């Protein structure tokens, strides 16, 4: 293996602390706090527009031009990557990323081999580069012919695998996956999920996995973060979040899944709609749809409360107020 020596300890690889993202008018992310350890898979779950993709983009500083990090810091190991230009040394080398639709991120004019080669950051001979690519293609479950093929010759699943190869070619410590299986078929998606799970031990990798499917998150990850309207409403280990959700939103989200019901039973859905960022409720963003709503919920945003083995933002479990 061409891996460099890495320590196997459970150490923190990424720390996100009190991150606020937005501009003068809107705040897309509010007080995001989490950390990920080595060889851990962390899933970020939520409905569309809750800020889960933005969280990933904040980490590698690929935010849209009109959004900025207003407050807070992100550490990659010991490097403060929110600082000016620090991310340039890490992005693509220590942190890899894969996206939802592989076909729109691959250049149709170049072969896969060519494109992966381009991603190699350290200076090695061309022949070594090719060897390295062949090796990674094999590990990812692609045939060596793929090196010479163009993106249109590959199926969606193979394209996604090629993207994964590209993200892993520099041996990163962290892989950011933004809904990598949504555009794929059930059977192909399952292959990709299994591959990602295996990669963790082969490459000593940590993965942040963004998805809207909470049962998939439970299957793949060690920890789950549930987001709603730009705040983390609940975080904890995957098993207990799925089986015993504490926050009313998580409870209702899991209750929406058809697999929780008998055939054609009435599904208990969440009333109302996700608020838009332009007119967020002044208090807890979930309060208009919440059945446990109290007076305080409409006035103040709940702070992080540790209950059992996880963190919840809900006044049901204590009176901590967000400062």
């Amino acid at each position, binding site marked *: 293996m061409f891996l460099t020596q890495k320590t196997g300890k459970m150490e923190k690889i990424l720390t996100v602390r009190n991150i606020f993202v937005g501009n003068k008018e809107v705040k897309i992310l509010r007080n995001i706090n989490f950390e990920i350890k080595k060889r851990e898979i962390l899933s970020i779950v939520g*409905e*569309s527009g809750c800020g889960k993709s933005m969280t990933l983009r904040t980490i590698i500083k690929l935010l849209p031009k009109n959004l900025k990090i207003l407050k807070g810091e992100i550490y990659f190991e010991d490097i403060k990557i929110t600082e000016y230009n620090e991310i340039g040394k890490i992005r693509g080398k220590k942190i890899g990323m894969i996206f939802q639709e592989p076909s729109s991120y691959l250049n149709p004019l170049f072969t896969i081999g060519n494109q992966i080669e381009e991603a190699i950051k350290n200076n090695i001979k061309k022949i070594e580069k090719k060897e390295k690519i062949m090796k990674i293609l094999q590990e990812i479950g692609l045939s060596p012919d793929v090196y010479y093929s163009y993106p249109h010759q590959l199926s*969606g699943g193979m394209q996604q695998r090629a993207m994964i190869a590209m993200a892993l070619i520099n041996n990163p410590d962290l892989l950011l996956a933004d809904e990598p299986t949504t555009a794929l*078929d*059930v*059977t*192909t*998606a*399952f*292959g990709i*999920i299994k591959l990602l799970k295996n990669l963790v031990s082969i490459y000593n990798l940590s993965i942040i996995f963004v998805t*809207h*499917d*909470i*049962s*998939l998150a439970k*299957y793949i990850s060690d920890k789950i973060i549930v987001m709603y309207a730009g705040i983390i409403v609940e975080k904890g280990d995957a098993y207990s979040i799925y089986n015993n959700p504490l926050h009313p939103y998580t409870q*209702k*989200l899991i209750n*929406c*899944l*058809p*697999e929780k*019901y008998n*055939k*054609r039973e*009435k*599904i*208990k*859905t*969440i009333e109302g*709609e*996700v608020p838009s960022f332009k007119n967020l409720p002044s208090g807890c963003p979930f309060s208009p749809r919440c059945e446990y709503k109290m007076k305080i919920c409409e006035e103040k945003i709940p702070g992080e409360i540790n209950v059992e083995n996880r963190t919840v933002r809900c006044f049901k479990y204590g009176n901590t107020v967000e400062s």
Partner: protein
Amino acid sequence: MEILWKVENLKKEYEIKGEFKSVKISALKNINLEIYKGEVLGLAGESGSGKTTFGKVLIKLIEPDKGKIIYKNIDITEMPEKILRNYRKNFQIIFQDPYKSLNPRISCGFTIMEGIKGNKKERFEKSIELLNLVGIKKERFYDYPHQFSGGERQRIAIARALSTEPEFIVCDEPTSNLDVSIQGQILNLFIDLKEKFNLTYLFITHNLKILKFISDRIAIMYKGEIVETGKTEEIFRNPKHPYTEKLINSEI
């Protein structure tokens, strides 16, 4: 049980024209299928296996190359469009992407009114009734599609499909573009409407959980052929075709 649709040896080929040569792709190869009245038939298969083509050929939005389509003992395969029009109102389709299937220049109320027969007042009242039925307030009658969210648009598409009082609806992945919480609402709506109007659905989806939840019987498509049909529980318990097995094993 009464057979609503019967399809025999249905074939459809597409020609992809290239600069120098054209390639023929068979989207449907020899399909035989029966749909009973009042059931929900789930149609699953990987993308490109011909699920959508089948749905469209069945209600003759696309002409088949060969084979027979029999609707209530009437062969509609060769029927001239003028006569077929009398039957068209009985079958409807709901598409996957509610952002593309609604006309952006017609307000949602008028979209629904188009399919209703009668004088203007009757049509107006009926369309409000339909909007109400799918859970959209009547104040939004004059709103245009862009003013609605994805879930609401899908509701409008459903109301439009219901406007001709059909007995059969092809649902072409109607929830795959929606969020989980909205997906639940739309599934509820489908089930309510089925019971209310005694509808028959051909429910195309690749989501195994939805398939298990909603369908009485399942047909599995693979490379343009229906490789397996059977009762939902039966297929999940004892898949026979290798592809079905692979599909069911990839449930998370």
